[in-house]
């Protein structure tokens, strides 16, 4: 199975390659990219240098153009696709059907991957994208069990890539409106979930309070590990209880299920985290590379420290191993 690693900056890109990535995914510094955070991402020149560097090292480069085109402004996405192809992208990761159609018609030789943002996770949807646009791979949402993935793999005619480590989005990606509701900015259109421009942390006595827009998301007592200020991981007062309605502040880690994922028909394992720094990328990619190459009984020890880098300093297998509360 391939190890697909994130890079939000050229420095993180080099770290990922050096640490043993089979492919690195990244995007341009604009709204064509679902990780459109300030100071992140690649200029055209930087992407050209990155793809050339990766190629010399035998690593592939996937370019994510995984937001939805705004009517009347399609040229921004078309130009991004043209530039990514010209600069040597090994695959384009796309969410918008219109952009898939454009890419398939204009660059018939270019390899296309279906982004998790496309919300395509059933055989009908996926086989349509394979037949209509020649999609070669789908990145599945983090809402399926391993049994679901195995059933799906038997019915579709493309490769499967799944998230195995990093930020845990528990929603129907590409359709979630929680961040839009709180901030007016959409992850799916503008490329930012819980944008930093709307995030505030403040101290209230010994508590750390996180806010998103006009909403208080969480209050962490002094000794409690903190999390991102996303509504889906907010602490809510429900009836007489206070707790996490959707998901705890926690990250995904299903590296102990590698063999089950392989048997289910998964071709590629994806690490989330284009918004993270180069130190995170270096450590996580290096640890996962070693774990992939190690015997099953050795993996737990190799991955133990990664929990400290995770949201809330806790990890979960999420929906892959679903248990209802």
């Amino acid at each position, binding site marked *: 199975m391939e190890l697909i690693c994130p890079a*939000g*900056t*050229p*420095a*993180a890109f*080099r*770290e990922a390659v*050096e*640490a043993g990535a089979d492919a690195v995914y990244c995007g341009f510094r604009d709204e064509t990219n679902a990780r459109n*955070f*300030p*100071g*992140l991402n690649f200029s055209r020149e930087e992407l050209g240098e990155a793809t050339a560097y990766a190629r010399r090292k035998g690593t592939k480069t996937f370019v994510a153009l995984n937001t939805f085109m705004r009517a009347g402004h399609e040229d921004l996405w078309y130009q991004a696709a043209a530039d990514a192809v010209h600069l040597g992208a090994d695959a384009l990761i796309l969410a918008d059907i219109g952009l898939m159609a454009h890419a398939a018609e204009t660059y018939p030789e270019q390899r296309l991957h279906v982004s998790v943002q496309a919300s395509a996770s059933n055989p009908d949807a996926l086989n349509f994208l394979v037949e209509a646009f020649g999609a070669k791979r789908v990145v599945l949402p983090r809402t399926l069990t391993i049994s679901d993935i195995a059933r799906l793999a038997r019915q579709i005619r493309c490769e499967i890539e799944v998230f195995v480590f990093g930020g845990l989005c528990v929603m129907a990606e590409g359709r979630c409106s929680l961040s839009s509701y709180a901030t007016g900015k959409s992850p799916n259109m503008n490329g930012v979930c819980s*944008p*930093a*421009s709307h*995030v*505030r*942390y*403040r*101290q209230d006595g010994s508590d*750390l309070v996180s806010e998103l827009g006009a909403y208080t998301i969480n209050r*962490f007592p*002094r*000794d*409690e*590990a*903190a*999390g991102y200020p996303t509504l889906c991981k907010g602490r809510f007062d429900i009836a007489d209880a206070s707790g996490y309605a959707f998901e705890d502040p926690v990250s995904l880690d299903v590296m102990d299920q590698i063999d089950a994922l392989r048997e289910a028909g998964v071709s590629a394992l994806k690490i989330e985290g284009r*918004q*993270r*720094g*180069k*130190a*995170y990328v*270096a*450590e996580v990619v*290096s640890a996962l590379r070693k774990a992939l190459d190690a015997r099953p009984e050795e993996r737990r020890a190799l991955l133990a*420290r990664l929990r*400290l*880098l*995770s*949201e*809330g*300093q806790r990890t979960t297998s999420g929906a892959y191993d679903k248990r209802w509360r």
Partner: protein
Amino acid sequence: MEFPRPLAAPLAAVPIPLIDRAVKLMFKSLLRRHPGLFERLGEHKSKRYAFRPTDLPLVFLVEPARAAVSVMRKPADPAADAVVESPLFLLLALLEGRCDAEGLFFSRSLTVIGDMEAVLSLRNALDGCEIDLPRDLCAFAGPLAPLVSRTADALRRRVLAGEHAAWN
């Protein structure tokens, strides 16, 4: 690892202009080596960043628009768009991109108050610069450069070994 108290305590007595002068020289040396650092901040270049090492009696205020740094003694609370608090060695490791900022934030070893976008932009700008303090501050040390560089490098190895810093 915290800055040793026996070394931190005397800083409360050293005249601030002296510390300020030394820090300004190091800052200038660093910027000479990385002239593009603050350009990467884009619109956040005009922001003011306060750094409060939790183990030192000092506050550092960085103003990218003026390429300036100033040092104050606690409990000074200079007006800033963002305030970053952490032990000194972790702040230096973050400056070099050797520690994962979010991991430190989740563990509560690092506190960020105020303009989060400005702080993330600074983190990303620093990531791209590949700062190496022992190397970059050599110019500041003049004829003692080789000695300062070797000492700083040894100190960094010892400090970061405890923090599991990762960087290829």
